[in-house]
């Protein structure tokens, strides 16, 4: 590359220079064991997987009605097989 691609990009350079990273103090040898790392991942805040369903009216209705329908279906199945 003969020319610096950022040479004329004054604004972009200014914005990129705004991003400062604070480097924390930590030793070279890890004290955290693999188990600790796994626990950290499992315990970190996560989004609610049901949220896309319950955030709409239809989804909420389906969620409330589904157990009733499932129970009714199971009842019919038992009636068919055992009567």
């Amino acid at each position, binding site marked *: *590359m003969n020319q610096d*691609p*950022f040479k*004329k*990009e*004054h*604004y*972009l350079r200014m*914005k*990129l220079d*705004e*991003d400062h*990273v604070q*480097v*924390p103090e*930590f*030793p*070279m*040898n*890890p004290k*955290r064991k693999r188990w600790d*790392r796994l626990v*950290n*991942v*499992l315990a*970190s*805040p*996560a*989004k609610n*997987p049901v949220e896309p369903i319950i955030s709409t009216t239809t989804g909420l209705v389906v969620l409330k009605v589904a157990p009733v329908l499932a129970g009714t279906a199971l009842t019919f199945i038992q009636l068919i097989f055992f009567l």
Partner: protein
Amino acid sequence: MNLIEREDQLMIAFQNGDDTALEKIYTLLKPSLYSFVYRYTRDEQLSIDLVQDSFMKLHRYKQHYDPNKGKLKSYLFQTAYRLMITKLNRRKKWRSFLPFLTPIEKGEIDYADRLTIRDAVARLPDKQRAVILLFYYHDMTQEDIAEILDIPKGTVKSRLHKAIQRLKDELGGEFHESGSI
């Protein structure tokens, strides 16, 4: 002796049995390595783990480094980059099976507010993000970046140009420079 030569010399000393040399290498390279990984992942704990894993790998496989093939900094960044991609891909796989592992995502960016450069860089495709971080924040040459990312030099140039254009598009109508790259 410039900094790069000093790092390489320390690594040779470490390969020859001087264990204190690795601590000195750590002091010299930890800040830049952490900065690169953190700017890429935006996850502090993951970044700490990756830096530590990289140095652990450097220690364990110290004889694998050949100063005739490249700089120590490029070698270490390459190690960290590969570990990072492996770990991120593994996490994506787990999250597809176990949705409760999916981290909380930031809400849709309100374009009434100014998009920060962090957001713009985070929204770059992974391959473009690595190139621009290495080029801009770490003053790496195209050759160094090609070695770290294991891609051709021409690909580095093309990704860099695309990344710059994309950042400009993401940051919106703030640009008034004349001319283009």
